[in-house]
């Protein structure tokens, strides 16, 4: 086991897969010579050279489309979009091509590519640079969507994503790149060290309320759970879904059947968000077990303001989660 930062774990995942499979290559803006906008590709060009680690011009739509074409031609591209915000420019290639090609051509072509992008706010980057678009991508059939919150999960999921034959939207968080965690040492050889998509992690066990947190909010959920235990004597069960598509609904439902209450925390906008989808699924499939309506804690329904105070007020914190959890307990029949 080694203690690594998230960015290092993600870099190691790619380096290991690139050593293992000649067809894996990295493209994106400033991934090579600049060593990566967030340093997540640091050192890769030195080891693998320009053919396999390519800087691109600023052309998100065409970067992704080129990745799709290269995947159709037999390679395994790992595309880096500098942030989730810029992925909007590539939506056509993602939705109408990457996600649709295997289906609309009846399996004659596959698109084994990974599109990595960090999202989230909190650094005063303002309205156009602070989006959380997990909900947008989890809607699209044909895509896989990953949202790891720990370095170990990041590495294992990215390796799995690269080996998978489906197009994967790999959503990271700008604020999580520096977080440290224990990561299993070394290359797996063949087989181990990968995480299967559709397996959530129970971060904390408890019997009173289920809290599901996405990306950075998984950490916020854990902090809230600690507070709930210390100050309110409430034992929360914290679940980190790790992948949104496929979603490990079973683990979440098992938990709700035990606790009878649920809170979902996400950084994105409330309407049509991850929580909106998950709350409906829980209500539909575990209705008889619920003692209170499912609570959602989300980012404010506003474009992310620049002002430090406004921005922090617009992002969920542990206080919001604690309040929501207590509300479900008050709603007990």
């Amino acid at each position, binding site marked *: 086991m080694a203690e690594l930062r998230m960015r290092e774990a993600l870099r190691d995942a790619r380096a290991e897969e690139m050593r293992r499979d000649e067809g894996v290559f990295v493209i994106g803006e400033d991934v090579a010579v600049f060593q990566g906008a967030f340093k997540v590709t640091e050192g890769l060009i030195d080891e693998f050279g320009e053919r396999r680690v390519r800087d691109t011009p600023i052309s998100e739509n*065409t970067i992704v489309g080129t990745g799709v074409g290269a995947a159709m031609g037999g390679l395994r591209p790992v595309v880096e979009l500098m942030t989730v915000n810029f992925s909007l420019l590539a939506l056509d290639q993602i939705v109408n091509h990457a996600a649709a090609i295997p289906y609309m051509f009846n399996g004659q072509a596959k698109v084994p590519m990974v599109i990595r992008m960090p999202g989230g706010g909190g650094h005063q980057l303002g309205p156009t640079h602070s989006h959380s678009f997990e909900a947008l991508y989890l809607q699209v059939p044909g895509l896989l969507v990953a949202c790891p919150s720990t370095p170990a999960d990041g590495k294992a999921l990215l390796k799995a994503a690269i080996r998978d034959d489906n197009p994967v939207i790999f959503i990271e968080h700008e604020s999580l790149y520096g977080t440290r965690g224990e990561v299993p040492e070394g290359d797996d050889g063949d087989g181990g060290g990968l995480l299967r998509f559709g397996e959530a992690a129970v971060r904390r066990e408890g019997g009173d309320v289920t809290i599901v947190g996405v990306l950075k909010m998984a950490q916020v959920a854990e902090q809230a759970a600690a507070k709930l235990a210390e100050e309110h004597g409430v034992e929360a069960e914290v679940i980190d879904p790790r992948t949104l598509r496929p979603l490990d609904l079973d683990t979440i439902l098992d938990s709700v059947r035990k606790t009878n209450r649920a809170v979902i925390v996400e950084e994105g906008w409330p309407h049509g968000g991850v929580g909106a989808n998950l709350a409906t699924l829980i209500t539909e499939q575990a209705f008889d077990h619920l003692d209170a309506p499912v609570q959602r804690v989300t980012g404010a329904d506003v474009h992310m303001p620049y002002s430090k105070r406004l921005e922090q007020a617009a992002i969920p914190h542990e206080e919001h989660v604690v309040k929501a959890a207590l509300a479900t307990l008050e709603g007990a029949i």
Partner: protein
Amino acid sequence: MADLPDAATCYELLARMSLIRRFEEEAGRQYQRAKAGGFLHLAIGEEATIVGTTSAMREEDFLIGSYRTHGHAIARGTDPKRVMAELFGRVDGTSGGRGGSMHIFDAERRFMGGYGIVGGNLPLAAGLGLSSQYKGEDAVTVCMFGDGASNTGNFGETMNLAALWKLPVLFLVENNLYGMGTAVERHSAQTDLSKKAEGYGIPGTRADGMDVIEVREAVAAGIRAAREEDRPTLLEVVTYRSRGHSAADPEVYREPEEVEEWREKDPIETFARRCVEADVLGEREVEQAREAAEREVAAAVEFAEASPEPALDTMYENLYAVTDSIGWYAVDERSPEPHRGEHEAEMPEAARELAEAGAAYAEQPQEGRRPNPAQSGDAQDGLESRVGSEPEVGDEPEEVEASEEVED
């Protein structure tokens, strides 16, 4: 004017163009009979552009096109039976009925699609080119798209990337003088489309799209440049489509005289005449090519009609590649009775009944002429307006020959 190749090649070119012509005419007819649905884009008049291009390609080269590509697949060797079956939405179609007219695909013959988003295929072509270059393979990618596509963001971005990375791609603009209903002078500030990529680092040339030999030679040069010099190039091929943009187009944007003028330059007739006058082919062979096309297309319709519709419980197939990484691939979460995609074949009773009930709406009330929405207003005409007064229906546009008449 370039020399004619040998008799066998000339016959092949003529036969293939005749096959595409007959296929497109029949496809239009089947669309009027509501056997083919959605949008149907015919390439009548553009046969020389298509066949001239494919005849200069090798088997290992990739071809990728727009949405007007029945002919492109057929020219690469796809069985017209399977293309017709795809138009009919049947299981034996090239894409199993999932893609339709705009999404023909034949992996075996390296026809990489068929794309409905204008210009969306350009980055894909860059990617295919990249894959050949990366693997050290010889294959060249030929990317065909229309004059309208040359204005999309895809064009500029892809030209820059291809020039920068020296991708082995030939970009071929099929300039048929109209982007849907907008003439090229009205949609492109630079009407010499061969010049449009110069600023990005890709020089261009022009060829007469009605002359199959000229197209063939121009494409061969572009393929050579890509393969031997790692040079992507742009080739503008000027052609004309004698039918509308799609089968529902009343063509109010052009004069019947113009259509007639271009009909006189028909690429198949002019090529046949040239071959006969040069004693390379006889009248007999020209006739043979046409008869063979008739037979093949008739067989294609028969095949398509006999092919079954896709079974409802196969709806989720090929959505995902099922691998070790994911245990299941889709969930039908629609109420009632949500279930996993891989259990679609044993879907719960309620879900099955609802799927059948939904599919029943697909049944045609009767066979017959499909109303042309562009001429007779939209499907809402005749329904009571729920809010305010009835919408005013404008004058019926002049009946235009090209779309109203169906050749029998």
